């Protein structure tokens, strides 16, 4: 049923280039895999989507861009049937549909990879995937036939370069591996539209490029893709067209191949922003060792973590040390050992201003001036069901928020308000629950909470994971400003671009070993990329390093 929007369809010049392939489908709305028009969704206090329309052809990779809170997630939930719009219509393969539920969307052939994974932790990979088969035709194939399904998962995972053991339990998987499961879960089914919510945010550059090969292959087979990413370079590299949302409205559409990233970014945020710019290098002459890690050797966490092996590094006041690496190579272990969530086997492994802190609890380390931004926002970084004020108190207790065991409510609210305004956190005031914030806004709050405490040492994991360009710039600037005030900062991130923008020195973790640490000016993305893949000589252990672990295992692991 061609509506008044029909004439707009001719705007796309790509229709001609791809038209040849999909000629048999052309005619009226049929040339669109999915089309929506006039989608409006109002939540209390916000218009999440305001008259949004979108159209994707078969085999097209379409980008949806926008800042946090621009309404991308709402639109995707509507297209996947999780929520229903207040008004507006959706056509799928030329038929108008009211998407009642995700099951309904999947029966039509719509798959979705969520940003917050919807996996069941106590089940195995293959069980998780089996659960998403819901519908008569698929039931027969999947029900009870876990063995067959496992074989298919292995096929798909090796075919698309996403190795995963189908029989592992999800709780033992790293973030990156969980995402693979999410993607494979969609690929196992016969889908004709795949929606991906920031799929690259946890992948290494190598993984991203292999994912792109996968996605392009899917598109070439006729599958349509709706791709959400904050990384404009990726949108440029992958997508055929882009729709930009701002404050719930369409801010524009463009061809990412011909539009510059600056133009796309300004469409997103409504003003010119700096992108990928290198921040100033540290000018600190202070040669003290604020944080020193010496010979840190620890067992892996859980069955599938990476054991840390003879890690040496130090950070000076007024310096940012970047540690690159793919998730699951010892980052979790390192962060937990540095923060004190897990105690080191020897106090001397970690020193803060020459004081051995390896066996101090997190609270004691905080009293010595350490602050931590953990990897998981909800659960470790913040308590989901507590208000922002209370979450501020959780680590800000040293900021005079407590007196003689009593809470100083006014100061607690003041501290939270300060974080909210200084870091432009979008929330319904300091009484909003942490879980009500979008991922990016919560990240801004957590980082702001730690930075405003003026720590001597800041350990920061994935500072801009899932955060949009505007917020990422703000976070980076705040980290640089904190560094210039003399704080030593360790940033662990999978985002190499980010590390090259803000770090003064850089190293990489691979299989629990740390590469050489070099000044950023003296190395290149390629070299660090190789370190991430494990191509480096393990630095000779220093004679002074305390030996803790079994010598035979060290010897074994030394062989390159």
């Amino acid at each position: 049923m061609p509506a008044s929007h029909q004439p707009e369809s001719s705007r796309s010049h790509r229709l001609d280039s791809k038209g040849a392939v999909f000629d048999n489908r052309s005619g009226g709305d049929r040339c669109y895999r999915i089309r929506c028009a006039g989608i409006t969704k109002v939540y209390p206090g916000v218009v999440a989507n305001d008259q949004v329309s979108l159209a994707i052809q078969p085999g097209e990779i379409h980008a949806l861009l926008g800042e946090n809170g621009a309404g991308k997630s709402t639109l995707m939930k509507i297209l996947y049937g999780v929520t229903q719009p207040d008004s507006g219509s959706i056509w799928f393969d030329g038929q108008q549909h009211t998407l009642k539920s995700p099951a309904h969307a999947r029966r039509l052939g719509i798959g979705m990879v969520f940003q917050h994974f919807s996996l069941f932790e106590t089940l195995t990979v293959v069980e998780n995937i089996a659960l998403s088969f819901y519908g008569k035709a698929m039931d027969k194939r999947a029900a009870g036939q876990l063995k067959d399904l496992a074989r298919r998962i292995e096929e798909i995972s090796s075919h698309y370069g996403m190795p995963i053991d189908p029989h592992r339990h999800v709780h033992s998987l790293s973030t990156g591996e969980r995402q693979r499961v999410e993607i494979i879960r969609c690929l196992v089914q016969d889908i004709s539209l795949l929606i991906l919510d920031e799929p690259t945010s946890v992948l290494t550059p190598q993984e991203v490029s292999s994912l792109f090969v996968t996605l392009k292959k899917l598109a070439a087979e006729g599958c349509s893709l709706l791709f959400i990413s904050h990384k404009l370079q990726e949108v440029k590299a992958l997508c055929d067209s882009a729709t930009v949302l701002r404050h719930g409205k369409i801010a524009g559409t463009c061809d990412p191949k011909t539009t510059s990233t600056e133009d796309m970014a300004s469409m997103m945020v409504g003003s010119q922003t700096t992108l990928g710019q290198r921040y100033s290098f540290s000018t600190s002459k202070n040669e003290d060792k604020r944080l020193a890690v010496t010979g840190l050797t620890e067992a892996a966490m859980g069955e599938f973590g990476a054991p840390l092996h003879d890690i040496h590094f130090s950070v000076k006041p007024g310096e940012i040390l970047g540690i690159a690496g793919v998730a699951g190579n010892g980052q979790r272990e390192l962060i937990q050992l540095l923060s004190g969530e897990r105690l080191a086997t020897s106090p001397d492994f970690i020193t803060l201003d020459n004081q051995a802190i390896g066996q101090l609890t997190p609270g004691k380390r905080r009293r010595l001036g350490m602050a931590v931004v953990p990897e998981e926002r909800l659960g470790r970084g913040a308590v989901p069901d507590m208000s922002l004020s209370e979450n501020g108190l959780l680590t800000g207790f040293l900021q005079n928020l407590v007196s003689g065991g009593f809470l100083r409510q006014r100061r607690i609210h003041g501290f939270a308000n300060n974080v909210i305004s200084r870091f432009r956190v979008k929330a319904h005031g300091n009484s909003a629950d942490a879980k009500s914030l979008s991922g990016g806004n919560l990240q801004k709050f957590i980082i702001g909470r730690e930075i405003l405490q003026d720590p001597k040492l800041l350990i920061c994991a994935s500072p801009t994971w899932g955060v949009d360009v505007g917020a990422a710039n703000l976070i980076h600037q705040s980290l640089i400003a904190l560094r210039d005030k003399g704080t030593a900062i360790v940033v662990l991130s999978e985002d190499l671009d980010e590390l090259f923008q803000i770090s003064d020195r850089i190293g990489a973790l691979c299989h629990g070993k740390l590469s050489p640490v070099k000044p950023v000016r003296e190395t290149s993305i390629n070299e660090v990329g190789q370190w991430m893949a494990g191509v480096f000589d393990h630095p000779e252990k220093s004679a002074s390093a305390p030996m803790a672990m079994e010598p035979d295992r060290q010897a074994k692991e030394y062989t390159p």
Partner: protein
Amino acid sequence: MDMDLITNILFAMVRTGTPLLLVALGELVCEKSGVLNLGQEGMMLMGAVIGFIAALTTGSLIFGVIMSLLVGMAMAMLFGLLAIQLRANQVATGLALTIFGAGLSAYVGTDYIGQALAGFQPMLIPLLSDIPILGKALFSQDILVYCSLGIALAIWLFFRFSRPGLMVKAIGESPYSATAVGLPVIMTRWLALLFGGAMAGLGGAYLSLAYTPLWAEGMTAGRGWIALALVVFASWKVERVLLGAWLFGLASIMHLVLQGMGASISSNLLATLPYLATIVVLVLLSSNQSRSRLLAPMSLGKPYHPAG
């Protein structure tokens, strides 16, 4: 100890453990789906009294059993209306259900106290019941005992191999993820809850129609609570529930046996033995903390609010 005594002890162990096993299995399925129903004791009592009355008035034990299943489900429905549909606090609702069931069963059953009934008789299974020691314990029982074993096996297979079993586990872990995947959360929880209710009713009926075929006020004597604890300490595993239920049975018998042997321990102290022994053994079994945490249904007892 001679062979006869051991044989009889095992026989009584299975009988005593059966009502516990039935109730605990029902609650296990219910909890796996994320619904914590503390009303087991109330549902059991209602099952016991209604089953007894039905069997006595019609003379059909089977009819009594069917009525106890139905009344258990009706009680569970009451719970579901409040806790699933209206999202009331599950703990409070469950406690209320227990109190309600205890009161109502006492009221309904006043006229039937002291009346006697020929309960379920043992059904010998040919050949198998001749096996020394185990033959009597496992193959010379009444039909409800065989049912309890069959149901235990069925539930084990259900969670181990079937897709609906997987769905129940997933919904108990994260109803929101389950919705995202497209699983029917509310409906699955209702079915699990009703199953739990039916099993509690059956457990009650076992007491009043087979174990001691009569009705006495409060005759479950806390077995509903023990069943609840059993599920937790058994880490939501069917085989451990079976083990725990029989262990409880064994300890209950041992207290009688020890008394009979003239042990010079206070009988009141001995009476605590079943409770103590069951809990100690199961605590030891579930002492591996990191593992047992993963076994518990993560959303147990949390109301589910579908997204608007």
